[in-house]
């Protein structure tokens, strides 16, 4: 399989690999995929509660090069966006940016799911109110 230059770049120099404290009320965590299917993504955002802007995003991914690149790209795009803007990121944007072939479209879908799951987790924490 030939990879696009952008996939290779993200694979070789992944942006924002790491983890944020899961219990922190300003952090939202999304964990999607399954090991049996060959890909699992963990994507985390830290949101500034005053402004609603994502000031930090981190990922860890078990999966093929395209899955790693999709999540790496997603963290880059998330930083600086508001929560609402983040929810407008579509998997097709990732496909276009990374020139993913049809068999790798599911990697971008997984990345979109991971973004949605991370934001949903953050919003749930906010609604639950500040934990004492």
């Amino acid at each position, binding site marked *: *399989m030939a*990879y696009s230059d952008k996939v290779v770049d993200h*694979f070789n120099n*992944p942006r924002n*690999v790491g*983890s944020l404290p899961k219990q922190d009320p300003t952090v939202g965590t999304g*964990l*999607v*995929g*399954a*090991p*049996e*299917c*060959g*890909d*699992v*993504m*963990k994507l985390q955002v830290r949101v500034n509660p005053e402004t609603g802007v994502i000031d930090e995003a981190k990922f*860890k*991914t*078990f*999966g*093929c*090069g395209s*899955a*790693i690149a999709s999540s790496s790209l997603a963290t880059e795009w998330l930083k600086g966006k508001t929560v609402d803007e983040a929810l407008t990121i579509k998997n097709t944007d990732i496909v276009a940016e990374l020139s993913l072939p049809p*068999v790798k479209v*599911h990697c971008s*879908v*997984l990345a979109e*799911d991971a973004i949605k*799951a991370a934001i949903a987790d953050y919003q749930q924490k906010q609604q639950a109110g500040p934990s004492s």
Partner: protein
Amino acid sequence: MLKFPIYFDNQATTPVDPRVLEAMLPYFTERFGNAASRNHRYGWEAEEAVEAARKQVADLIGANPKEIVFTSGATESDNLAIKGAVYMYREKGDHVITALTEHKAVIDTCKRLEKEGFRVTYLPVKPDGLVDLDALRDAITAKTVLITIMAANNEIGVLQPVAEIGAMAKERGVLFHTDAVQAAGKVPFDVNACNAHLASISAHKMYGPKGVGALYVRRRQPRVLLSPIIDGGGHERGMRSGTLNVPGIVGFGKAAELCRLEMAQESARIRALRDRLNAKLHAGLDELHVNGSMEHRLPGNLNISFAYVEGESLLMGINDVAVSSGSACTSASLEPSYVLKALGTGDDLAHSSIRFGLGRFNTEDEVDYVAGKVVAVVRKLREMSPLYEMAKDGVDLAKMEWREH
């Protein structure tokens, strides 16, 4: 000096040995005759060369030259053996026994027979990849015509107990075919020692050319008859029509002869390289799972799952090394390896598997380079793996509820 990409995929195919190529070359040009031409020297020369090669191939597996049928490769040999036998002995029964870990050339041939009304038992294998002889004994019925079990597996290199299987088949009056493609030339394989009635071999797995193979067909005690699957001019004693691939066959013969003469030395050298690779990987990394028996295994094969790392990403990280993976992402089917599945290896570990296939032209320097590279890339990918992090935090991944998509 290392030459990149380093080739560690010798179970997929092997390079043609320069000595083999040299033997073949005259048969493309000056000696281009058709081995079936009976009226002139071109034909006689070609026929002589084919008969010399037939003897070389026969000698490798302890056969009589008259028992060798040349084919276009082992896929054809497997088809001819299985279909040819069950069509010929249809009156005797309609049942075939094989194993879940066989090559597709055997499995898919059996699947076709099922569509035609034959019954097929696909034996499970033990966690080490070996067929359970008791299960095989229980599977044989009065209607069983053929047992087809490979001598060595192409993915995990596991050697099946073909001597015991052959003895059982003989005792029960059932034909025994073995796909010996990966075994022949690498480990001692003798058609009489294992009581094989039929055996498939292929030149390109033993440093010969692609597109030429052979089927061993027993002629005595008992004489095995086959119904041909290709009709035509009646070559190869009517069992396989078609003008013989003379240069290919000459190369096959030379390759078989070299394997026979050099096997003892060569297998010891390759085994040492394989063991060195295995030791270096285990020294540098934790949570490795060797797939299949280490004891009953081809000297050049190592199949390892690198837990928490997906196989295709590992291949991408070691892109100056040519190996293959059982990961779904690297196959057309989008399913992880059915061979690893049959061992009971979970799908997650099947996705993490790499097959290293060492061969005649590999060196210690290559092993050291590959081991170092794999260790570094696996460490990097594990730093990126949420599964590795969770496992290190004590999370039981098997008990998690995953959000599949």
